[in-house]
């Protein structure tokens, strides 16, 4: 069944405490290659049948309203995955 993937990330100018905690932990575990980390959300919406334009539009609107908080987050990606 096709799925629509929605990726939501904290806005770049907003503090991301989660990413901060991870970037602090990585070097302690020997992962030293990363200068910053941000943690966001990935949603997989399953569609029964074909992903029409209308359904994609629904996904985009849901992404902008329910799945993200526009005050602190950006929807960075909405894409169909078969």
């Amino acid at each position, binding site marked *: 069944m096709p799925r629509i993937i929605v990726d939501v990330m904290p*806005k770049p*100018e*907003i*503090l*991301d*405490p989660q990413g*901060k905690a991870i970037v602090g932990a990585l070097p302690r575990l020997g992962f030293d290659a990363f200068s910053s980390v941000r943690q966001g959300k990935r949603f997989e919406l399953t569609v029964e049948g074909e992903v029409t334009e209308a359904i994609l539009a629904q996904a985009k609107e849901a992404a902008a309203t329910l799945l993200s*908080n526009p*005050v602190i987050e950006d929807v960075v990606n909405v894409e169909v995955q078969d």
Partner: protein
Amino acid sequence: MTSFNIDTVENAAATPDVDLPWAELGLKQNEYDEIVKLLERRPTAAELAMYSVMWSEHCSYKSSKVHLRQFGDKVTEDMKKDMLVGIGENAGVTNLGDGWAVTFKVESHNHPSFVEPYQGAATGIGGIVRDIISMGARPVAVMDPLRFGAIDHPDTARLVHGIVSGIGGYGNSLGLPNIGGEVVFDSVYQANPLVNALAVGVMRHEDIRLANASGVGNKVVLFGARTGGDGIGGASVLASESFDDSKPSKRPAVQVGDPFAEKVLIECCLELFKNSLVEGIQDLGAAGISCATSELASNGDGGMDIELTSVLLRDPTLTPGEILMSESQERMMAVVSPENIEAFEAVMDKWAVEYSWLGEVTDTGRLIITWDGQKIVDVDPRTVAHDGPVYERPYHRPEWLDKVQADTFRSSEAGSNLPSTGDELRAATLELMASPNMCSKAWVTNQYDRFVGGNTALATPDDAGVIRVDEETGLGVALSTDCNGRYAYLDPYTGAQLALAESYRNVATTGAIPMAVTDCLNFGSPEDPEVMWQFAESVRGLSDACLELSVPVTGGNVSLYNQTGTTPIHPTPVVGVLGRFDDVARRTPSGWRENADGQAIYLLGV
């Protein structure tokens, strides 16, 4: 380091006619003129940033000051005897006996919580807790008096769920039991929810710390989170301070809290206090570094030199003025004597807290801030922190009040519809019990940790929260917050007194002796003479009542402009009372205990 066209003091003196965005920053013409007079030249962009935030209503109390004086004036010697630190510091301190002291304060985070409920409420808890730490105390509990709009309004769910989970999310992560609060629904609060947060902390007398920078040569350090563009979204006009259009200017309007960072900051500060490693300390809240540097300097020996490029940044594009105004959370500023630097750094490293040394205390009487060596601020810190404008705003009793007061239950038509039959009484009782303001608040309190710390002797559903302070003797405190905004609307003088009386009773009925008061005065716009009258009357009422009951106000907060268009909220003077227990084992819970058979019931009072 990004390079800017820096507006230096020298440049300001040489270019008196440059247009500065003082109006956009919220200053009035007379206020700007006053700044020019104080400096004997135009302010630099950085100085303008500092004065504008420090002289805002929020930081300077310019409309409320003349009334608040009554809290300090209407006190007897007896009321002062247990006050170790009075109004004016971050929070007042009361003597508990046995060498223990307690500090508590309530503050508002109303507007930020309307914009972004979760983060607004969360950072409200964070801010008040830092106030308590900065007195040298260990925070031991929080409370949250809340007001929301109508329960069936479409926007209410967003606010209620966001605000409650924000308070829980932040407070629970700090390990601070939530021991009480209020939940009130009333359509007057629809677009102006009230999120008041109270924190209480305890300390040994010798650990009391004040926000002052004394000891010439002592070092000034900023520690905790890095400084970002938080909270300066509204002041983005400052981007023009660089007089350079190319600068990216994305400044977040909301602050995101990091409770983990704050928890670590608490433990780290307690370790600093325990080892006597700081001479003075100040939390960073509204007005950030502007407030911390000017208050520390003016409360101390009067001078401080700061190099602003030493501030650790989250966003390297910030201009000096923005850095001075940033409200990034989870930061503290301290004054450390040179011989303690190493020990101070060891504590920071242990808790993995970032810090940077910004400068030192001087005896010049000037707060000097440089940017890469160039002087961008040269002010008398008192003029920033304490000598802000004071307004005697006009006020008068609203004409509509007579009509509202005349409309009593007895005199109205409704009086004839009083429930009288059994069925009517039953229906009325059910309606009351089902009212969102009367029904169980467990759906809120179940989301708050009330057990952490192991010292909670009473919390929900009791009238007051009770916290044990000394595990050996059982010495402890009781706390309650109360206010009925509808009473205050009908009569602000008496309404404020009733808020105190209720809170006082709630503390007394647990068995504690009421000792001190904090208040959060939530009102509409002070520029509306009718609101100003409500404010003046409430303060007069509360201060008279405090005198009558012999309990001093040790601190509090004023939140104005809580109104939509020309419609203000009900005057809502939330009053918190703190009482003392010599042994919390004596606390009396509300409600029938098991084995209550045969016990007598009395109704006391009138």
